[in-house]
């Protein structure tokens, strides 16, 4: 594997820089996603959403989540008497850490990644599934029947939807011939439909993308698949007994999960940092500049990387927007409908998709 931009000769320095960037990304991107949810959801429901809390002169509630965080820290940290205190306190962390760890392998721009693992897809999907362990821990240790029911629903949902998620990703791996996330992005740059039209995997893998997206909604307990936290039935599922900063951790885990799964979908299906299929931002700029008769510019790798990060972010937050859009639009499914949908529609569809892709791959 060739080293990325963040790999310096000194191991300690590269680790420090990577950690710094990861934590910075981890602390800002979920907040942007959360703010987006506040505002988009509000406007789709004919409201304005947060309008007061601002950062400096920028109003329209941009500081709402920061203010919320400050509020959560001040709140009393209540642990129920009957709760299993150690597990109860550990659960939010267990739910949060997988999202943080997945960021290690996410390529955000050309050369900008924590680690180009050979088994990147496998690692990302495996680690992101760990968060349900946090949910189960929270559910069991709360000593609350609603929490427990929520946890069991979450576990059942995970088992049902992990399969379509993996099947959707497996088809892409089959097509690209690699498990490395960076190589999958590069494979999409070289991919041509019928050997002619450059295209991301989203078109030939339309079914796979749909499977992956729907399954990631279910994985994140996002509406319309939020039975584990269905407020009209079981209060707030595994989060019922949580207060203060621990509750905030769960919410942060949800938004971080949205960002991370959108990022994986971006890398697998939407061509990562390529602004058009097979075209990076510097290439696009040089095309436009050449159209006006100016000479091609040389872009420093760091500048090119940052431009790539911008493109990736745009795609990630477009997917986050769609998640919020679904939340505003679709009513919650019933538990049995959810299971039916996965086992009777999505999984057969996913298997069929793999067969079709495999045949096409062999024939091509």
């Amino acid at each position: 594997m060739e080293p990325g931009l963040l790999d310096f000769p000194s191991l300690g320095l590269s680790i420090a820089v990577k950690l710094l960037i990861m934590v910075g990304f981890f602390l800002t991107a979920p907040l942007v996603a959360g703010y987006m949810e506040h505002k988009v959801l509000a406007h789709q429901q004919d409201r304005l959403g947060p309008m007061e809390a601002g950062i400096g002169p920028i109003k329209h509630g941009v500081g709402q989540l920061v203010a919320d965080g400050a509020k959560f820290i001040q709140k009393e940290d209540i642990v129920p008497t009957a709760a299993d205190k150690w597990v109860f306190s550990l659960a939010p962390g267990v739910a949060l850490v997988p999202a943080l760890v997945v960021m290690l392998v996410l390529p955000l721009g050309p050369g900008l990644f924590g680690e180009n693992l050979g088994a990147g897809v496998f690692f990302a999907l495996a680690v992101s599934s760990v968060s349900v362990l946090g949910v189960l821990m929270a559910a069991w240790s709360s000593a609350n029947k609603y929490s427990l029911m929520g946890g069991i629903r979450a576990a059942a949902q995970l088992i049902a939807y992990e399969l379509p998620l993996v099947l959707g990703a497996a088809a892409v791996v089959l097509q690209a011939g690699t498990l490395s996330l960076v190589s999958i992005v590069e494979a999409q740059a070289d991919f041509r439909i019928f050997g002619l039209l450059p295209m991301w995997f989203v078109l030939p893998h339309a079914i796979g993308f749909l499977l992956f997206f729907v399954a990631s909604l279910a994985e994140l307990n996002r509406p319309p698949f939020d039975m584990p936290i269905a407020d009209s039935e079981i209060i707030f599922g595994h989060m019922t007994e949580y207060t203060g900063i621990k509750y905030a951790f769960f919410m942060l885990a949800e938004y971080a999960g949205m960002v991370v799964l959108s990022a994986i979908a971006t890398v697998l299906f939407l061509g990562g940092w390529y602004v058009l299929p097979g075209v990076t931002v510097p290439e696009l700029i040089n095309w436009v500049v050449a159209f006006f008769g100016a000479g091609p510019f040389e872009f420093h790798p760091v500048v090119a990387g940052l431009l790539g990060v911008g493109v990736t972010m745009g795609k990630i937050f477009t997917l986050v927007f769609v998640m919020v859009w679904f939340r505003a639009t679709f009513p919650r499914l019933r538990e049995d409908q959810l299971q039916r949908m996965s086992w009777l529609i999505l999984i057969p569809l996913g298997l069929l998709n793999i067969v079709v892709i495999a045949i096409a791959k062999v024939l091509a």
Partner: protein
Amino acid sequence: MPTLPKLPRPPQIGLLKGLGVTLKTMMSPSTTQQYPHVKPDLPPRTRGVIALMEENCTVCMLCGRECPDWCIYIDSHKEVVPPKEEGARARTRNVLDRFAIDFALCMYCGICVEVCPFDALFWSPEFEYSTYSIRELTHEKEQLRVWMDTVPPPPELDVGADLPKEIEDGLKAARQAAEKAAAAAAPSEAPAAAGKAGGDAPAAQAAEEDIHVEAQVDQEVFDQLVAEGKSERVARAKAKAAYVRKEKARIRAERAGGEG
């Protein structure tokens, strides 16, 4: 024999329609008013707070007695007013000492405003008078006087409605005075008809009162009033009145000409 699981129906076009609705709602501007920054535009009959016009109050106590919550407190004393004429009896008059409404008890039914025979109580749309202390919700007459300044003018009358009684009376009196003056001036202009007119004058006046004119909007007057900044409704009503007046004057002049 075990039954096969029933396949769920495939997702239908309604899912996409729903997405379209939310997207359209997101694009259309919200009607939310940012309240503390933007004051609401309340209609003039809003039941916000009750105001007292102290000068009109005669301490008849009707409001206090009708109040279902007994939230109106009235104190008064009697004063002797010396007689206006020599030898007449001295009169007594009620003087208001205290008039307070406890808005912590008030249920904003408006019966006191309805029942007041002297137009001393009014509704005002002001509503921002919440306090940290329940005692401060008892508004004394000084505060009720302050609210009086916030009472909006009554809403405009509908087109074609009768004029308020006091204005109708005033107009009638003015018309009669004008006619009396005209009648006084008439004999000098037409001395030949004087003998006959003298006897017929009340009849002619009655006939003139019977002149019926179909109301129409006088466009000139209407445009002028709108240009002055009057509301369209007021302008239309006034333009109609002006038209009727003009028509009546014309008919009257015609008749007078015919008689002359």
